[in-house]
């Protein structure tokens, strides 16, 4: 008989090993899926994971890595606090959109301003505030009405998505855009443009914010009482209550933190790589960031690595789409599978397998 036995303490070794194992298993099963689709499996895996970094056109793809990883890391860092404390903000995608709308809306309200020193910093503040406010809706509703923050935050993703459509077609539409949907391009608005800081590196202010968030989160979690309270609230809510940690305040702080960072990510994206408020602006970073957070073990450094890995699957996925005509959905499936396998392998962190006969009680 194979039986699972609870470990007295979660295994450190397995908590590091299981993400790696999950990635390997996903590559193998993903390869089988690609083979079933009639694509060469080894070549497909190599196209996704190797070519963007070391292939022929790597110099073009490497900057993209930073561009794609930055929002994922920024959002996932915010989510990780809530996830640790058992507060499930699933609506980062919506907060990301609202951050972009707030930031772009603010900048466009002052069009054409020359005062970059004023506009751009305030855009960051306003964008962050947009995501924060959007996340406060599920937060406050949970605190005051005991509604489920998972459902409310998710419903607000759809609301935000329609809001984006409405803004792209209405209030924020480019008055000189000949009637096409979409706002003015912020890339041509120097005061608001989140440009590359060093040409052809992909390094923009959002990337710097992401790195800063990783460091800040690390310090907060390991050196600050807030980080301790977050871990306490997650592992033992009762103990946290006795220790004087207010559960309601924890909800609001964690929702605000994740919403604010998601909003900031959205603002950097709309002002930089994307440039425009358009219906097609959001590409699911808010959801992929959930995978990033778990794959990174809810730990800042882990999230940093996981963010790059997921960014790689986005870029490699696009490459595989061009070179091998691999359907876009295959990459989505691939990302979902990764989280699945991670959760499956994770059993080894908390349990050990015991072979032998079951004892008769």
């Amino acid at each position: 008989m194979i039986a699972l036995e609870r470990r007295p303490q979660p295994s450190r070794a397995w908590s590091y090993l299981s993400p790696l194992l999950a990635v390997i298993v996903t590559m193998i099963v993903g390869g089988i899926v690609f083979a079933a689709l009639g694509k060469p499996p080894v070549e497909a895996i190599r196209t996704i994971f190797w070519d963007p970094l070391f292939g022929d056109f790597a110099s073009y793809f490497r900057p993209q890595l930073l561009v794609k990883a930055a929002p994922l890391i920024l959002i996932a860092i915010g989510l990780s606090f809530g996830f640790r404390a058992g507060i499930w903000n699933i609506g980062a995608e919506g907060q990301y959109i609202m951050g972009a709308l707030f930031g772009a809306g603010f900048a466009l309200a002052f069009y054409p301003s020359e005062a970059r020193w004023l506009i751009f910093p305030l855009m960051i503040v306003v964008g962050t505030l947009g995501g924060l406010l959007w996340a406060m809706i599920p937060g406050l509703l949970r605190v005051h009405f005991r509604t489920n923050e998972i459902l409310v935050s998710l419903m607000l993703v759809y609301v935000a998505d329609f809001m984006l459509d409405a803004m792209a077609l209405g209030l924020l539409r480019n008055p000189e855009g000949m009637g096409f949907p979409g706002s003015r391009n912020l890339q041509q608005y120097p005061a608001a443009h989140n440009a590359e800081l060093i040409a052809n590196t992909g390094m923009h202010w959002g990337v710097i914010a992401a790195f800063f968030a990783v460091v800040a989160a690390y310090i907060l979690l390991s050196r600050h009482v807030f980080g301790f309270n977050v871990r306490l609230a997650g592992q033992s809510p009762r103990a946290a209550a006795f220790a004087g940690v207010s559960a309601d305040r924890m909800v609001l702080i964690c929702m605000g933190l994740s919403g604010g960072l998601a909003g900031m990510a959205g603002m950097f994206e709309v002002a930089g790589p994307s440039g425009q408020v358009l219906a097609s602006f959001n590409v699911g970073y808010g959801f992929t960031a959930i995978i990033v957070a778990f794959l990174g073990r809810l730990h800042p450094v882990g999230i940093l690595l996981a963010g790059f890995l997921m960014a790689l699957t986005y870029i490699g996925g696009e490459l595989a789409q061009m070179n091998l005509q691999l359907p876009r959905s295959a990459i989505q499936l691939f990302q979902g599978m990764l989280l699945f396998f991670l959760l499956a392998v994770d059993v080894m962190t908390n349990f050990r397998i015991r072979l032998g006969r079951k004892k008769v009680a």
Partner: protein
Amino acid sequence: MDLSSINPLLLLASLMVASTPILLAALGELVAERAGVLNLGVEGMMITGAACGIIFSALTGNAWVGFAGAALGGLLLSFLFAVLTQVLLSNQVATGLALTLFGLGLSALLGQSFADARPPAFPKLDMPILSDLPVLGPVLFRHDGMVYVGLLLVVAVWYFLTRTRAGLILRAVGENHEAAHALGYRVVLIRFGAIMFGGACAGLGGAYISLVRVPQWTEGMTAGAGWIALAIVVFAGWKPVRLLLGAYLFGGVTVLQLNLQAAGLAIPVEYLSMSPYVATILVLVILAAGRAPGSLGKTFHASR
């Protein structure tokens, strides 16, 4: 704007059709949650069901086979969830999210070559006498078979949960899995059953969208219906009959906003389209009542 173009009888009739997918999915989730399992993967199972429904009905030319295939697809996906949460003891919230993300990708992959497929016609039932009744006839008795399957399932689930011994055991497992285990009930086995019933129902609900409501395949076509179904379970206080009420409420909002769009209300379409989601939130805030099953969402391991 021309509100007189909205026919109240047609509105009520289409309300029943619009609420059926949510009703089916919510019913399955209700059984799973009464057994103590929180499966947040409803959206993923629904969309997979929608894709499977199109595929099976396009291949066989029979809508009922499509529904059966969709139920199977949803069931298989929920089996994955069951293995992960019940055998490998993973976190139910995270696994449910994974299931949704996975299901969205899987369905897009499965459905992409069926984008042009038109599902076979799904006939409306014509009941003697009943269908010809004034007012009630068009509202209640001129729908397709699945609408009534949904209603029958509500009654069946209500009967099962409140009037049978098996239902009592299932509820016991959901209320307190330690106690149920101590009494000798097979907690994991019962939960497997409940989860897979939920998966099959979600698959049916998804197929109803792709085979009847729309009817064709587009990526992400369930558009949050699975999440609304989850909300309705909370709204209904985990009671099947109130579930029906909740589903009709949302069906009503959906149909009304579509009718208002068609009538050319001066509000932009995007704001009207938000209304079902906003209504879900409002309902959760104002009306949410009832107590969740005691062991809902908790991992069970017979280690003590």
